[in-house]
């Protein structure tokens, strides 16, 4: 228990360091919020016409899509942060300290999660301004955001692993982005999957981004008209499927990342 508590306090020191960085280099936080807000505005007004017939308009379906897309990018952010620490030799220094092997990666993922809270709040406000009106009531809206945070957290652990195996922060950031960016578009986030070629449709239906988007649409009180074509399991049960994906991701990448950290640079 004592070990556990000191592990938690070590992790919090690492998280605090990350928040200090945000204060010292506010550009990071500003860029992290401006980019999704810009997406909100662009999609809202460029593709707004797509939503004819959707109750409340396109923006009701768009917002969950952009929320999910934004938290998906956490993967790249975490990966880049850890790869930078590797490059600078900070990971080696941390590994020479008498702290829990999980503390650094726990602290990092928690920090990136906290950053997501701020970003989602700003985006929620921006969404409200451009007409997004969730109808499900406070509790379900809260659950929706909680799920978004949890999804970002799970992906953050994939980012930890990517960051620790890479040797170059820029490369890993670009690779993670190249991997996650199409994932967010091959989904029901911005347009209906019905019009995609068949194989893509199947991919889009099972894509965790789609299940997350569908789940949050449901929790925010909108009928997900952008992806119920194949009557596949994920499109009919998006919340359960999303939770399943998150648990699987964390079950794989948490132990893998901690192990990787333990043996980082062991060559």
């Amino acid at each position, binding site marked *: 228990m004592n070990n556990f508590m*000191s592990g938690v*306090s*070590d992790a919090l*020191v690492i998280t*605090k*360091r990350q928040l*200090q*960085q945000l204060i*010292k*280099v506010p550009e990071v936080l500003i860029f992290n919020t401006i980019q999704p807000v810009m997406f909100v505005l662009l999609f809202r007004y460029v593709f707004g016409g797509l939503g004819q017939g959707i109750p409340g308009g396109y923006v009701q379906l768009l917002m969950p899509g952009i929320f999910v897309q934004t938290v998906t990018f956490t993967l790249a952010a975490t990966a880049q942060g850890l790869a930078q620490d590797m490059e*600078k*030799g*900070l990971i*080696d*220094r*941390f*590994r*020479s*300290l*008498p*702290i829990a092997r999980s*503390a650094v990666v726990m602290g990092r993922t928690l920090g990136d999660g906290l950053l997501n809270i701020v970003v989602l709040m700003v985006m929620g406000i921006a969404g409200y301004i451009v007409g997004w009106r969730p109808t499900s009531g406070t509790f379900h809206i809260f659950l929706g955001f909680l799920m978004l945070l949890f999804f970002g957290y799970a992906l953050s652990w994939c980012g930890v692993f990517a960051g620790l195996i890479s040797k170059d922060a820029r490369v890993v950031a670009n690779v993670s982005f190249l991997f996650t960016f199409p994932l967010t578009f091959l989904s029901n986030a911005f347009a209906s999957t019905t019009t995609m070629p068949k194989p893509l449709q199947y991919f889009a239906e099972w894509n965790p981004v789609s299940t997350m988007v569908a789940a949050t649409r449901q929790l925010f009180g909108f009928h997900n008209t952008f992806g119920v074509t194949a009557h596949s399991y994920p499109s009919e049960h998006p919340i359960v499927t999303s939770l399943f994906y998150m648990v699987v991701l964390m079950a794989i990448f948490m132990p893998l990342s901690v192990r990787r950290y333990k043996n980082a*640079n*062991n*060559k």
Partner: protein
Amino acid sequence: MKSVIAQDLVKTYRHGEVRALDGLSLEVEEGTVLGVLGPNGAGKTTTVRVLSTLLKPDSGRAVVGGIDVLAHPKNVREIIGLSGQYAALDETLSGWDNLVMFGRLYHLNAEQARVRATELLEQFSLTDSAKRPIKTFSGGMRRRLDLAASLIIRPKVLFLDEPTTGLDPRGRMEMWGVIQGLVRDGVTLLLTTQYLEEADQLADDIVVIDRGKVIAQGTSDQLKSKVGGERLEIVVQEHDLDQAKSVIERISGSTSTLDAGLRKVSAPVKSGTESLIAVVRELDAIDIHPLDIALKRPSLDDVFMSITGHAAEEASDE
């Protein structure tokens, strides 16, 4: 008592093709400084990484402060300080923030961490820059701060991996001053370096390593006498060469080498400055005025040439 023991350490890469450590053994007596001298790729960093729990060797034994490194790495981490080749700090944060963070990670409470950070910044003359982000620091300041971070818990054993590599002469002198201060306070130190002069300045004992093995060890004087110590070199007018040669041979008591093209006579000398003065006096008395005169100290290359028969640069890459 031995504070550090490394026994037959072996570490190979690429399925045994590259032997970074090839049966390396060394010991550091408590309260003394061991200089590990070797060229790039000799295995210096690998040795430090094994002893500081960062790297598991394929075989061999390592004991630090009486604790088995492989069996109880966490206990070892509680008594060591490590400062690597590159300043491993958070560049966006200030020196103060870095030291407080590392203090907290060494499990000092918030107040203790602040007190210790203040002390260390004072000790390393960094108080004035304490609140500036590290990225604005000079190379020498970064290294000093990095060293400060490794001293937070007053470690029993300190490992410094090439503490002055990449620093300008001034930064190097400052760093030497700081390390000499620690040595006076009685820290047990293992220090790696590529510079014989640095080992000479800072270390009680020196081990010379090459290709993952210790190839020579002893005090700085012992190693130098092995290499032949200092050489005295004189450049004179061409018609003075013969006389200069006989003077230098008489005083040094050894055979000289003559380079007629450069008009240079040189010979190994035992007590460098005394021989230098004697030779100058003697030449002056017979009215010979040297164009140039110098005492050459043996470099790492000379040590390597005499021990291994190959120059330091030829050593395999890491």
